[in-house]
């Protein structure tokens, strides 16, 4: 299940959906939150822009790749857009599988690919003004690890 939405999501609801299948033995979830500090500036809010349709297509493609690489039972991927306040939830990735190795790998793979391939852009509102974030070399390196 893949969603791009303005509204918040409910971790517990998403988790229970993943846990409800009898064959699931392992569930790994990732949640990204708006951090108070970034690049040494105090963040007051975060604005997330996306490219309607292309973003969803890109996310479907990333989840598809994960399902081809690992034996997974279910994947949930939710990414918020719009303006988010401090400590708010940005992204949820939940993966269920029979064994933990697959769930860990797929969850991290999805985040690494999302960070470098899915059309989302962040603008931080800080005490000293608005700032579009630049892409991060660490994220590029993280995504490269999965190439084979």
């Amino acid at each position, binding site marked *: 299940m893949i969603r791009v939405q303005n509204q918040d999501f409910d971790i517990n609801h998403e988790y229970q959906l993943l846990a409800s299948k009898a064959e699931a033995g392992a569930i790994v979830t990732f949640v990204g939150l708006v951090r108070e500090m970034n690049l040494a500036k105090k963040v007051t809010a975060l604005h997330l*822009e996306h*490219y309607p349709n292309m973003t969803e*297509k890109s996310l479907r493609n990333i989840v598809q790749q994960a399902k081809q690489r690992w034996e997974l039972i279910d994947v949930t991927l939710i990414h918020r857009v719009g303006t988010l306040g401090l400590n708010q939830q940005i992204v949820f990735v939940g993966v269920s599988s029979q064994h933990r190795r697959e769930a860990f790998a797929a969850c991290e793979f999805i985040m690494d690919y999302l*960070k470098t391939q899915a059309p989302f*852009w*962040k603008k931080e509102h800080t005490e000293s003004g608005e700032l*579009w974030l*630049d892409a991060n070399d660490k994220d590029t390196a993280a995504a490269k690890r999965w190439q084979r």
Partner: protein
Amino acid sequence: MINVVFFAKLRESLGIESIQLDVKGINTVEDILQTLYRHHPSWKGELSQGPLLVAINHDMARLTSPVKAGDEVAFFPPVTGG
């Protein structure tokens, strides 16, 4: 016609969300950029300031990728979601 759209920092710095171009004389993404520069010389600086990504009809593409009438061509900076 080709629909050209801009996102994020680019959209803000150009002050434009989308622009429709006549396909005449345009065969590749690079031709789109040259056409834009001819009409708006000041855009050249903005569009070549950092890494420029391009998508054709929602799929990532390159400057040399062919374009045709009806295509939606998007320009944007490297992504920073998640």
